[in-house]
């Protein structure tokens, strides 16, 4: 019985009470960077003794700025494409994305203000995302099958997803075996802020196999392996790169180029978790480790630990800590040789200056509280502090975000 009170581990979709939940989350990066306000409505309902439905409706309001991928001007190493001579950063005034022309009424052209030499270039692209997800749980004895359909829409991105998860409980429910497959077809839509000239597609498949094992009255071991494969347009259409021989426009602004990632990406992730009840303290502790590797050359390790402390009959407080480390993608850099137009021979096959592909570490400290208000209502409050640090000594530290994450949720069970 104690095991049932422990946090759910692994990928199995366990049938729960009928409920309606709403939640709000604010993810706010410091210094005017990205802020995402998320509103979620979740409805869970048993339709038949063997069938239940879970519906998630999500709205994200996205504002703020994100790094373009270009470094501060004073970090640039630019060469004249004709002579190969170094161009001093002090003579460069900023960056520009190459439109062929601009139709306007200023006639004399835009007023160019020189950008600060040490300022990290950022770009704003406010957006809204609407997401829907419907999962239908079909339970037959020890077997459970959950087909799931999802759709999300942003002004520059559209995603259609399908997933099928199977769970088999046996050994007096002490052992769970899980198998899952998910597929997403995404459309990356072109707009004036992207380097895309026409909308493009990408497809992603993930296969997961895993399970949980009750090792003792208060101990659960969980493990799963995920194999992923994505292909198609895998670039971030907003991310820019700078080449050493990039064109300078008449105002001495560097003309930015779009990044180029491989069009295929395979990944492997192994997840292990152990949950241990601490009966004497009326608490439990969960630790997990995740190993990740992909064909971009990224190796990542994630360590997570959370303590669930029950206080009285209706209050659970859970401090948590998470550490993440990754190596850089093989094609990550802050600047690249040559130029696709001016000197294509020197340009590497793949290139990206997206800081999320750099060698980095990230920390998360969190504190969550679950409060049972009465028989039907549960309140959840959460705060997380998140910060990322670059480890490559090339990418400037101000590229990496620090964020506060606040969550409040209310669930009505019936």
């Amino acid at each position, binding site marked *: 019985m104690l095991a049932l009170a422990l946090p759910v581990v692994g990928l199995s979709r366990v049938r729960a009470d009928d409920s309606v939940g709403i939640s709000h989350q604010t993810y706010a990066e410091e210094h005017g960077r990205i802020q995402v306000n998320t509103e979620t409505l979740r409805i869970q309902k048993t339709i038949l003794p063997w069938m239940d439905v879970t519906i998630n409706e999500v709205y994200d309001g996205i504002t703020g700025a994100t790094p373009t991928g270009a470094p501060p001007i004073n970090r640039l190493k630019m060469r004249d494409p004709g002579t190969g001579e170094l161009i001093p950063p002090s003579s460069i005034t900023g960056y520009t994305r190459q*439109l*062929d*022309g*601009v*139709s*306007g*009424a*200023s*006639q*004399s*052209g*835009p*007023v*160019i203000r020189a950008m600060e030499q040490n300022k990290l270039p950022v770009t704003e692209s406010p957006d809204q995302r609407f997401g829907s997800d419907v999962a239908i749980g079909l339970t037959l004895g020890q077997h459970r099958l959950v087909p799931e359909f999802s759709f999300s829409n942003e002004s520059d991105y559209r995603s259609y997803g399908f997933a099928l998860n199977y769970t088999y409980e046996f050994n007096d429910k002490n052992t769970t075996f899980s198998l899952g497959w998910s597929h997403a077809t995404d459309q990356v*839509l*072109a*707009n*004036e802020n992207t380097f*895309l*000239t*026409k*909308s493009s597609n990408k497809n992603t498949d993930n296969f997961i196999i895993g399970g949980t094992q009750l090792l003792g009255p208060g101990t659960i071991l969980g493990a799963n392996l995920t194999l992923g494969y994505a292909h198609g347009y895998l670039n971030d259409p907003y991310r820019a790169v700078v080449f050493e021989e990039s*064109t300078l426009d*008449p105002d001495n602004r560097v003309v930015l180029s779009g990044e180029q990632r491989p069009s295929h990406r395979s990944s492997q992730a192994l997840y292990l978790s152990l949950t241990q009840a601490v009966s004497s303290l009326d608490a439990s502790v969960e630790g997990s480790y995740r190993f990740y590797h992909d064909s971009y050359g990224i190796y990542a390790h994630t360590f997570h630990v959370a303590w669930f402390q029950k206080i009285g009959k209706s209050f659970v407080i859970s401090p948590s800590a998470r550490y993440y480390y990754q190596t850089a993608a093989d094609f990550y850099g802050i600047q690249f040789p040559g130029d696709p*137009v*001016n000197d294509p021979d020197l340009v590497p096959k793949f290139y990206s200056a997206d800081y999320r592909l750099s060698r980095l570490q990230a920390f998360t400290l969190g504190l969550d509280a679950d409060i049972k208000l009465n028989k039907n209502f549960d309140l959840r409050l959460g705060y997380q502090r998140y910060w990322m640090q670059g480890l490559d000594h090339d990418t400037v530290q101000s590229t990496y975000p620090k964020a506060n994450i606040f969550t409040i949720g209310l669930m009505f069970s019936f």
Partner: protein
Amino acid sequence: MIEVPASVVSLVSARVRDSMQVEVRGDAHRIKCRAMSTPVNIAFATSSAEAGKNLGLAAIDWIARFEARYSRFIPESIVGQINAKGGGDWLEIDEDADRLLSTCGEMHSLTRGVFDAAALPLLRIWDWKAEPARVPGESAILGAREVSGWEKVQRRERGIRLPMAGMGIDLGGIGKELSVDELVAMARSFGIRDVMIDIGQDIRVAGRSPGKDAWYIGLEEPDRPGECWTAVRLTDQAVATSGDYFRSFTVDGKRYGHILDPRTGLPVSNSCQAVSVIAPSCVMAGILSTAGFILGAEEGLEMIRGQSGVEACITTELARHQTRRFSAYVPA
């Protein structure tokens, strides 16, 4: 017949050539210069270095000659000489000038009279560069209106007469656009299919930009000149934008933009900020964008919807209003 002295053409040509910059990267050619008091940007693709060079030189000479012939700021130009003879006798003009003035008449009719190449007297009394800024008096505006208006201009084949002293014509609202169309035709005559001509942000394209599937033209954000609120994807169209957000003055808390409504003699004040028009020719795009700006969102869009192959977006202080198929040109 009115002649423009060769020395004037030479002087203008020399000035334009002095400002000329040429960039060649592979097949991509870009020529920049300054003419008609505005930047000129010519981009095209050709594998023939000879054709590229020849087009560049021919285009620059054509622009310089056009400015020398039709600038109202050059007294020896055709327009300068016509304006000097307000209240005088008939003047004989050549075939090119005759065709240009006929186009002005056609555009006057098409735009319900709001495009008016004979509104120079009104332009003369409004000075957007004056320090301190000043608003002309009512009597000055009335006086200027009495000698303004295309309907007062007398025309006959290869002839023009401004019957009243003080009358004058100004081709500022059509000259750049016509030049853009002519230069695209010139590029085609050189066997160049992929070309963009941009004169003072009035643009026409043919074919596609080197390395792309079309030409991508940003539309300037009126609240932040120099930045774009969207881009349009064009392969054989023109786009022009009219707006008064870049040139205006304020007196006693009232803003006076630089686009005049020839019907009132006053700057347009109808909450329009910018009108962008996509059309088969730059003349059409330019004239309709200016007329749409003067007429305002409702009447302007109604007029534009009546034109074949024309789409538009009107930005007002409150909203953007588009014709039905404008969004088809926005990459998505």
